[in-house]
């Protein structure tokens, strides 16, 4: 044994007890130098927690961590960074109002005398960009750039701080397939050329197969197995994770017979946060009992489209009609009252109140219904709790019980709370953005079934997703969006994904020439 090279990271008997939740239960894991290690597992299995411990964010209740044979005495990110560990979190930790360069050099700013040397900072970032091939503009403000770019900033920040062990927590959840490929190229090159070590958490098993050398599976706080990736396949991994087979069967469906659309968008134009046109003269129709998928690369107006339809964003021009009512200019409360529900892409800022518990997050918006309050005034707290228990059970929300503030739930469980609320309000029109972002395969299958169930109840569903597989599985019709306009409409059962991909990037004509 002593002949074997010491692992670059060795986590031994790690146990992490949160109030009411045993997040890690005696986990021991060795990571080898120069490997790409994938960590998979159900929502709430403890993946993020384990990696946060390695990065020094949490002090484990028990156990120890060795980096290159050296034991970490303090759990503190600065200590971890000194040991060459870098981490890109599931929910980014950038300062939105700072520039890219300011964010990257934060905490280790170059100075000229007493002052921040911004020219030098920009130069440093330019050099990093050259070196690693991750293109960003140093002077952009982080608030204004896409999530894909924000992620690059996070990675560059870790690299700038000298990380040679890089932890990526669900990096691909927010990326398009193309961006994912680019990211993987970067990962492969830093591992090959610079001998770095990468640990990647993901719910997409095809990615595990594509990029990792070894894979570890977690379930309910325990590490239940570590395999060579070449020895397993997606099905084996899925059943290890969930404890049973996840089939992801295609859905059998009949076309809707409705002739009257439930949602009509006509010639809609909307501005983005910077005041630039995001949606330009867009029109679409969704019929009851139909799912219209919107495929597009992040930042082509789909977020603004969803916000405009649900009343969250000002409509510049055009018209939106829901169930034959003109809702243009109505506020979200009025639109909801018509029977519209909305799963927003941004669960942290928009979809949930992090400080409130699961109960309040599930009931909000319906608290005036007779079942939850007397005369719409006196809250029936007991009924609210029962309701939360019911939904938690139905939607399999896990982690610490119904009085847990949602901000301390795992990412996938946050998403389940949000989905549970929006799917339980008996709506007739649904606007759904990135419904399965960050959820595990089992939960994704479950959410897809919920969406199909809503469809068969006659709901009109506008589905926006960066995941083309998801769109193909669910949509009756598929529209591609590019620079704020619809560039094509397809029947997913007869169209190749590659062709849709071309229309998504505005190169529709090329498809025609083939």
């Amino acid at each position: 044994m002593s002949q074997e090279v010491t692992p670059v990271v060795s986590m031994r008997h790690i146990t992490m007890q949160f109030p009411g939740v045993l997040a890690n239960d005696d986990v021991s894991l060795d990571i080898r130098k120069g490997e790409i290690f994938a960590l998979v597992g159900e929502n709430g299995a403890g993946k993020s927690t384990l990696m946060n411990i390695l990065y020094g964010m949490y002090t484990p209740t028990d156990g120890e961590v060795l980096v290159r044979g050296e034991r970490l005495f303090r759990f503190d990110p600065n200590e971890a960074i000194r040991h060459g560990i870098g981490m890109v979190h599931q929910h980014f930790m950038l300062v939105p109002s700072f520039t890219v360069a300011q964010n990257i050099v934060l905490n280790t700013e170059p100075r000229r005398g007493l002052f921040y040397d911004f020219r030098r900072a920009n130069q440093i970032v330019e050099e990093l960009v050259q070196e690693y091939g991750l293109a960003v503009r140093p002077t952009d403000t982080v608030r204004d750039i896409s999530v894909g770019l924000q992620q690059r900033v996070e990675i560059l920040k870790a690299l700038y701080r000298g990380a040679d062990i890089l932890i990526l927590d669900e990096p691909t959840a927010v990326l398009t397939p193309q961006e994912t490929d680019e990211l993987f190229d970067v990962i492969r090159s830093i591992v090959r050329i610079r001998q770095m070590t990468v640990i990647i958490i993901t719910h997409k098993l095809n990615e595990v197969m594509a990029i990792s050398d070894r894979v570890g599976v977690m379930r309910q706080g325990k590490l239940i197995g570590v395999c060579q990736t070449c020895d397993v396949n997606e099905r084996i991994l899925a059943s290890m994770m969930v404890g049973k087979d996840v089939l992801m069967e295609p859905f059998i469906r009949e076309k809707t017979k409705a002739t009257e659309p439930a949602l009509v968008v006509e010639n809609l134009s909307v501005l983005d946060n910077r005041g630039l046109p995001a949606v330009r003269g867009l029109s679409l129709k969704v019929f009851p009992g139909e799912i219209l998928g919107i495929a597009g690369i992040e930042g082509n107006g789909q977020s603004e489209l969803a916000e405009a339809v649900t009343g969250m964003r000002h409509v510049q021009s055009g018209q939106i009609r829901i169930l034959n009512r003109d809702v243009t200019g109505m506020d979200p409360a009025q639109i909801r009252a018509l029977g519209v529900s909305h799963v927003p892409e941004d669960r942290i800022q928009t979809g949930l109140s992090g400080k409130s518990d699961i109960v309040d997050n599930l009931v909000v918006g319906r608290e005036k219904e007779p079942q939850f309050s007397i005369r719409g005034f006196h809250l029936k707290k007991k009924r609210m709790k029962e309701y939360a228990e019911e939904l938690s059970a139905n939607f399999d929300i896990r982690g610490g019980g119904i009085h847990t503030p949602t901000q301390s739930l795992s990412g996938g469980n946050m998403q389940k709370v949000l989905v549970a609320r929006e799917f339980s309000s008996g709506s007739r029109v649904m606007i759904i953005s990135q419904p399965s972002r960050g959820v595990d395969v089992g939960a994704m299958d479950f959410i897809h079934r919920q969406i199909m169930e809503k469809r068969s109840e006659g709901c009109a569903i506008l589905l926006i997703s960066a995941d083309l597989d998801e769109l193909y599985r669910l949509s009756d019709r598929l529209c591609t969006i590019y620079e704020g306009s619809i560039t094509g409409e397809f029947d997913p059962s007869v169209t190749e994904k590659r062709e849709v991909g071309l229309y998504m990037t505005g190169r529709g004509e090329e498809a025609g020439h083939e």
Partner: protein
Amino acid sequence: MSDARKKYLLSLFSSILMALVIGAVIMAVSGHNPLEGYAVLITGAFGSERSIGNTLYKTAQLCITGIATAVASQGGIFNVGGEGQMYLGAIASCWLGAALNGTSPWLAIPLCLLAAILAGALYAWIPAILKIKLNISEVITTILMNSIAIYFCTYLANGPLKTTEKGIVSGTASLDRAFRFSRLIKGSNLTQTVFMIAVVTLLVWYLMSRTTTGFGMKLTGENSRFARYAGLNAGMLGILGMLISGAMCGMLGMFECFGLQTRFKTDFSNEFYFDGMLVAMIMQYRPLGIILMSFFFGALKIGAVSMQSQTGISSELILIIQSVIIFFMAAQEGLLASLGRHSSARRANRMRGGVKS
């Protein structure tokens, strides 16, 4: 009880204990006997009917101002302007009261109360609407508006509304005897208003914690974008919190003048609102906590006066004790984290029956 709640109470009690210990050390250092000091403080607060009355009244005052702070902050607005709202409530009610002198108190008192509530609420509405519509920091506007209100009332009381009674240099005309709230305990500050204060405090507490309105206000205060998304009228709920807060302050202004003062005097308040605001902040805006802490601080304040006169220990000591409590409560997060780490480590060790290496 939830774990977080338990830890919070633990840190609260340890903060109070630390503060009392530090207070004792200061007494000892300045050559007094701490035990004697605290003994006098306690008798000062509870030793006689009169002192009990004073303590209760101070408690009531802290309660209503504390809850006023809490209700605004639940809707997401930090009301630093209660003092000004109180002044306006006081002057409006006293002006109307003086004008109604001679009429039936059954008519006059409700009308004056209405005037006080409207004045306070209206004055709170201005910073609230500025915050909601234009995103102007309410902290700045409310602080500035305090000064405006106090100077404005001082001007009125020395000018247009000044009494014509002989020998009085400032203040509005005396109110009809029938309008005044009488004292419940002779010689103490405890007036009939204490019942009103108790009722209002409990009502607002109920509103905050048990109703759909309070529920909406809480979510708005936590994340107003989320509240809007979820279909709540976030703007209105934020403003409502401020309106209630201002109304409570205006009402207290009237009670002070109709009870103890018998008319508007420019110095009727000794920054009462800020004491209550402090209590609310220490108790993290939790209504029950505010009520309990008001009692503690009320007793300290009243007791300190006797302590100073009988033992010579400066009543400023109370300020130090308050500050130390605030300091420790502010440091709570860090303290809790370290406490939590130790206790969960112990728990895990117990679970596996081992000893920490």
